[in-house]
């Protein structure tokens, strides 16, 4: 804690006893537009009522308040939203309760799009994408489970079917065509 002189957004200067201050240099006015580009709705129409936070199951557990993140988006405080976007369970409760029809969950998804394009890619994304390209499934097929399947009289997991190679090739072509392999960094997995 210390005394900090802060210039507010309107130009008003004041001395604050706070460490974390926000000044205009940190703002990115185009942030709201960027969110819209990736399928989020206009965050500027948020009323800051807080319904989304009230119904959010995650906000009960950790310091993650949907309303605050939407506020950061309105101001354009891109870096303040770092690290928070991967804990949304996309349960869409916030959407059902939003009076401004913003769909905060979709805003979080747009933030994830932006994060990935800035190189912030959590390892599980790479794992799942690799599994999809290798096996056509987002989870790795298990030999043990395949044995149990046979005991139950079920067929092999499709991935173990020789005819499935065609499907894997198609997936590779599609993933490559949309440049997803480059985006996530799994180029060496994709054979086209």
């Amino acid at each position, binding site marked *: 804690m210390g005394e900090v002189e802060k210039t507010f957004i309107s130009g008003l200067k004041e001395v604050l006893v706070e460490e974390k201050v926000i000044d205009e240099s940190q703002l990115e006015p185009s942030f709201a537009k960027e969110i819209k580009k990736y399928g989020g709705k206009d965050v500027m129409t948020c009323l800051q009522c807080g319904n989304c936070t009230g119904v959010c199951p995650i906000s009960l557990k950790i310091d993650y308040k949907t309303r605050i993140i939407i506020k950061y988006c309105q101001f354009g405080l891109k870096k303040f939203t770092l690290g928070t976007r991967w804990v949304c369970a996309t349960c869409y409760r916030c959407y*059902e309760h939003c009076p401004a029809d913003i769909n905060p969950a979709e805003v979080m998804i747009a933030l994830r799009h932006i994060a990935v394009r800035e190189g912030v890619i959590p390892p599980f994304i790479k794992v799942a994408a690799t599994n999809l390209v290798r096996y056509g499934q987002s989870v790795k097929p298990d030999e043990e489970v395949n044995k149990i399947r046979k005991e139950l009289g079920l067929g092999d997991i499709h991935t173990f079917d020789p005819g499935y190679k065609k499907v894997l090739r198609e997936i590779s072509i*599609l993933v490559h*065509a949309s440049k997803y392999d480059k985006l996530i960094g799994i180029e060496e997995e994709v054979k086209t």
Partner: protein
Amino acid sequence: MTQYAYFFGCVIPNRYPGVEYAVRWVCGKEGFDIDVMDVPEFSCCPVPGIFYSTDKDTWLLLAARNLVLAQDERREILTVCNGCFTSLMKGSEYLRDPKSMGRVNRVLAQVGKKYTGVPKKSEGRRKVFEPVSVRHYIDVMANDVGLEAITAKTKRSLKNISVAVHYGCHYLRPTETRTIDDPNNPVLLDRIVEACGATSIDYEDKLDCCGAGGGVRSHVVDLANSLTEDKCKNISAVGADCIVTGCPFCLLQFDNAQKTFSKDGIPVMHVSQFQALSMGIDPISLGFDTHHVSAHSLLRKLRGS
């Protein structure tokens, strides 16, 4: 009679083969004899928490590829998973937009596929197409098969079994495009459980998330588990014998998370396994030994009744 194509997704075939067996048994000759086929070329839906979250274009391409396969067979997709349901249904809705459809088809041409929708009728020379219909297992059971038919097929009495049902978020929400149930007061899963002869008991925060979705389980597993712990506390408070869910990913979360905070845990199963139990199947075929939480307490109670 409607014709369907099975869409099991990733979690059921690779983690819970018992659910796949139960679904095939319930839909097959010994059950309701539904006209449903396998499409072996189906891939991952793709999973919304990964692909819809990081690149919508790729997500739509891969979803469209699956939709084309169902379209060419002229069948409705019967999904057994909430994730597959929401991903494919959203994909089908996105592709109503001619611009999206055109963009997707330009890429799909590289793999020799084309999404048009299912031709329904022709007005003069013009053909009318409808988007590929994506159905949830619960929806098909409650509305197409019917609750009376479910009751008529029950062989084993589940009278003294009390069930805590868990719908799962993506069964209910978002209501942006289409809903199969009331998002704030869903009833279909409760009704199926009741039609099987068991009692569905109410508990606090019934519609809360299991915690696994959106990549939370993969990213911060402790956070996901703590949400599940809250749910399980509420469920044990009302003394439920088992948890029945319509989503294999919620099933996986309940099943795996419970061992981190309780010794015994409440048995969890998919609605198809529960139906199969009521229809008199030998529980050994339901693959409960692949579940982490043992179903013994429930099976013992069933034998006692």
